[in-house]
């Protein structure tokens, strides 16, 4: 009798263990399946580099319109299919134009967007320094501006005479 009870206990224990193992492995399988799905963070990491033309100046990751939601779903699908961020951005650029990219490409005419700001800064600094230099430069004492008055004595004479009249 006692032996029979022990066998029953062992059987129940094995049954429980099998159940636990089954549950563990089945939920592990589910976890693996879920891991194939990109997370919201992964989707938003790419979405924040894109702008939907419908909602100007609002990055895709925080845009609340239906169009943006569809675009984010599209990113999720592409990530699940194994696309990387660059491929997805290229796809969106090809499909909707470069204006959807937060950062314009560095090739072609769009490279101007990258080149012009530093160029403008350099030019501004150049003129600023020239201005500061002109303002701070001290002229030698007693010196005066040399004006080219012309090449002839006649002209100089006339000019000096006119100036005398004005004094």
């Amino acid at each position, binding site marked *: 009798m006692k032996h029979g009870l022990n066998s029953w206990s062992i059987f129940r224990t094995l049954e429980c263990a099998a159940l636990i193992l089954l549950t563990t492995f089945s939920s592990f399988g589910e976890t693996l399946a879920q891991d194939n799905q990109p997370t919201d963070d992964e989707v938003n990491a790419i979405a924040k580099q894109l702008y939907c033309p419908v909602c100007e100046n609002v990055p895709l990751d925080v845009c609340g319109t*239906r*169009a943006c939601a*569809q675009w984010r779903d599209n990113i999720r699908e592409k990530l699940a299919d194994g696309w990387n961020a660059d491929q997805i951005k290229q796809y969106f650029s*090809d499909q*909707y*134009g*470069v204006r959807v990219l937060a950062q314009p490409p560095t090739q072609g005419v769009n490279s101007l967007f990258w080149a*012009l700001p530093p160029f403008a800064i350099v030019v501004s600094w150049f003129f600023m320094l020239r201005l500061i230099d002109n303002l701070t430069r001290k002229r030698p004492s007693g010196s005066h501006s040399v004006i080219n008055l012309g*090449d002839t004595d006649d002209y100089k004479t006339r000019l000096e005479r006119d100036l005398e009249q004005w004094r």
Partner: protein
Amino acid sequence: MTHTAPRIAGTVPEGTPAARKRWGQLAVWGLFATLMILVGIKLYQITLGPISSGRAPDFTLTTFDGENYTLSDYVGQVIVINFWASWCGPCELEAADLEQAWRNYRKHDVLFLGIDYVDTENEAQAYLQKWDVTYPNGADLRTAISQAYRIRGVPETYIVAQDGTVAFTIIGPTDYTKLTAALDSLLNE
């Protein structure tokens, strides 16, 4: 005695550092002016609004079925160009009317072209199935067509007359009555 003309005030002899400086300044101001002109043109285009007259901008639409439709190939026909999107609620208000108009007017040699604006293909296809749309539809690749027509949103409908000019511009959802009135007036001309 030789007499040379006095130098005009403000002129600088060529090749001198002062002349080079002046050319440099001119180049910088020229660049700045060009930039300002470009910005001005862009701002002007924004204020122009959608196209309402003149020659309809030409484009080639590749439909979801892979067919190509080039607008200029259909001069002589009345063409209805409708901009829509699956995420656009008001587009659903006109979808059935557009399809009905297409079915009634295709025998009069009227071409309908649906241009899907910044949409995702799966949702666009689902939309077309939902409303049983049978006229040619395709995506506005790189938003080139919508930019050419300067659309402000969707839905917008442009009706092109037989001579290739924009005869009617309908901003917002249209309906069967408006469409038939516009199409009849063009077909009876």
